[in-house]
């Protein structure tokens, strides 16, 4: 993901985390295409579907959300959205879904291609919109859909009843996938995958936690790129090793006082919401030019799953940020703000994401009050470039910066 297609070419150290992480993404798309070419059944998969299932079965899948983000970052979001709109999809629908449905229709998208699926794996712990999106793919292509339904949890803790419900679906999904692909489940392999996934998640979470240092050894926007690996390769040794390399690099950077944030870090903020992929450069520059580094984001938690056993795994998937109630979601964010000493909160009111934005006004008010930090929002979209105004963004970020400056006791 990210702006890889537009950056000038230069040689990257093959032992660096950046190289390894990029290679994982390239390999991921390559392997799924090769599997398809061999005649294996491949799937499209929601970003927070329990990847332990198909990793254990040795089934290749790819991720429409990653693909849509990459397509949007490479400037083709509007073109793809308009293909879906011509089919009758409202431009109010999530732009990831519109891009994905357009790719399904055209079959080839040069900005980020991936093979069409033989089945879809859906999990709605990020939103119910996923269900509708995948239903339409399933119907259109005449392929099976497997849904692991993880209802939004109105309570703070995940109930035993919810765990029992999701566990049953997990087991049913294994059976369905065995039937679809002819591959067989192995408990031994499952334990191995769980171990690797935990190792990857631990490294990912520890590496991302390094934004707690002042100055941070990383530009927070780096995480947006690395997240693709946390999504698509969490259950692989390659990903575990790459994140461990990333962690070592951050440790070294802290020791040496270096950072991938190529400016003086004057202000530290939490960025809330999915990245504005079509305007990544504008949103990143708007911060960097003012010495604002994004040091806090819920993204890290969203793709780090730590658990001890099968039930723990189920609970972890029930406890992703978009499936939890306001109080739990708020407390998690406040802990991040405090841990990273974030001085402001910048909220992306994302037109594509009703769930993420639908109670964000109230939650961000509470975070601002509890943490005594200023809160500003801007209107944007994760993948449709038409829903963002750079002028508004600049004004809002400038306003946020001025309040942070005042709070530091600096000039008025």
């Amino acid at each position, binding site marked *: 993901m990210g702006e890889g297609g537009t950056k000038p070419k230069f040689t990257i150290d093959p032992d660096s985390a950046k190289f390894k992480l990029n290679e994982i993404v390239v390999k991921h798309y390559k392997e799924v295409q090769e599997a398809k070419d061999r005649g294996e059944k491949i799937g499209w998969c929601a970003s927070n579907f329990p990847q332990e299932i198909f990793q254990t079965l040795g089934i290749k899948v790819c991720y429409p959300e990653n693909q849509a983000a990459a397509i949007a970052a490479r400037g083709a979001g509007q073109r793809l959205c308009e293909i879906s709109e011509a089919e009758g999809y409202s431009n*109010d629908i999530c732009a990831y879904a519109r891009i994905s449905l357009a790719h399904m229709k055209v079959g080839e998208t040069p900005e980020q291609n991936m093979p069409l699926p033989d089945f879809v794996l859906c999990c709605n712990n990020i939103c119910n919109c996923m269900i*509708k999106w*995948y*239903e339409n793919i399933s119907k259109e292509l005449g392929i099976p859909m497997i849904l692991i339904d993880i209802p939004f949890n109105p309570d703070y803790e995940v109930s035993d009843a919810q765990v029992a419900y999701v566990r049953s679906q997990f087991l049913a999904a294994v059976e369905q996938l065995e039937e679809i692909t002819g591959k067989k489940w192995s408990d031994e392999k499952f334990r191995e995958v769980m171990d690797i996934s935990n190792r990857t998640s631990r490294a990912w979470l520890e590496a991302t936690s390094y934004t707690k240092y002042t100055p941070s050894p990383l530009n927070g926007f780096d995480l947006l790129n690395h997240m693709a690996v946390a999504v698509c390769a969490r259950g692989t040794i390659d990903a575990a090793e790459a994140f461990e390399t990333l962690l070592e690099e951050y440790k070294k950077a802290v020791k040496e006082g270096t950072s991938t944030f190529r400016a003086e870090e004057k202000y530290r903020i939490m960025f809330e919401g999915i990245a504005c992929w079509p305007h990544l450069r504008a949103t990143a520059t708007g911060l960097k030019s003012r010495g604002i580094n994004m040091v806090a984001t819920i993204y890290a938690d969203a793709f780090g799953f730590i658990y001890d056993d099968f039930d723990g795994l189920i609970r972890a998937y029930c406890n992703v940020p978009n499936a939890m109630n306001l109080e739990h979601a708020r407390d998690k964010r406040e802990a991040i703000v405090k841990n990273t000493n974030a001085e402001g909160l910048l909220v992306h009111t994302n037109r594509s994401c*009703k769930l993420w934005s*639908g109670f964000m*006004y109230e939650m961000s008010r509470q975070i601002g009050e509890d943490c005594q930090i200023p809160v500003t929002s801007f209107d944007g979209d994760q993948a449709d470039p038409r829903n963002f105004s750079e002028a508004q963004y600049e004004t809002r970020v400038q306003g946020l910066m001025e309040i942070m400056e005042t709070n530091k006791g600096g000039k008025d």
Partner: protein
Amino acid sequence: MTTLNKLLDSFHEIASSPKKQLDAYLSEGRKVVACVPVYTPEELIHSMGLVPMGAWGGDIELKESKKYFPAFICSIMQSILELGIRGEYSGISAIVVPSLCDSLKCLGQNWKYAVKDIPFIPVTYPQNRKPDWGKELTKVSYERIIRDLEAATGVIFSQDALARSNKIYNEHNEAMRKLSEVLEQHPSITAVQRRDIFKSAYFMEKEEHTALVCQFMEALSQVVETESKLKVITTGILADSDGLLKIFDEHGLQIVGDDVAHESRQYRIDVNLELEPLEGLADKFSRMDHCSVLYDPEKKRAGYIVDLAKKHKASGVVVLITKFCDPEEFDYVTVKRACGEAGIPVIQIEVDRQIVNYEQAGTMIETFKDMF
């Protein structure tokens, strides 16, 4: 005034003044519980002697809700919250909010802070609702509603009372299904009047509504119809706006059947009375289908609408898309395609609780009518 007209006036009066109904119940000492779309287990609430009242928002200006919701959340959610903040639900004991779409999830979370004096009771429905383990989650969720209602009102639940309420609701379902069939034979009943009958069901106890509907059907059976209209099916979440429905009437369109969530979708499935009452209610949800907020990988809803149009010999389908309702917006593509393949014309009209001028819809309906 004839009995028929008196009944139509009653339906209209009740449908258009829910606050009056609420105040009347409260003045009688009754406790009232607000039920948010798309599906709430009203039977449970009714069985506890509480009055369930539908809360589907209203055609009002939004001001306070904008402090909680961004502009791209549908006007049903926005106006429910707006009414709550304005105090229109004052006196209500609790509000029950299912989380069947992303915006509904947000409504519940916002409600806790925007309307602090009315407790929020969540309904967690399983989308994989058909297997036994799905039904079990529905049942557990209903048990939680019972506990929350007991805490909010002090009233105690009993299975025997639920058995009686399940029966009352089944009878009401049957009456409403029959009503829809009967209305097909009566083009003189306008779209606005049809809406009034369906809408009034949300603001009175179901046994009373069943009685009124039965009286109405009896009175209607005496009416000899002389006119004929262009038959259409409506589909969507809501077909509530007077401004919009009057256009149906002005252009001679008759709604001969509907797949509207606020109307017939509520009445398709009965509780199996042979099961233990709470289990029966959970089982009812497991058998519900053909709805944009219920998992439907085969998109059977599209075929259902085609069959409905054929059954009622409708000339076309009017798709009323509630602005920003993504479940309906996704389904629209498959509905449009299925109708197209069956040779059934479709028009799509965007509806919103803030739209006051349906001029564009009028032009579309006029053009649609000219096709025949």
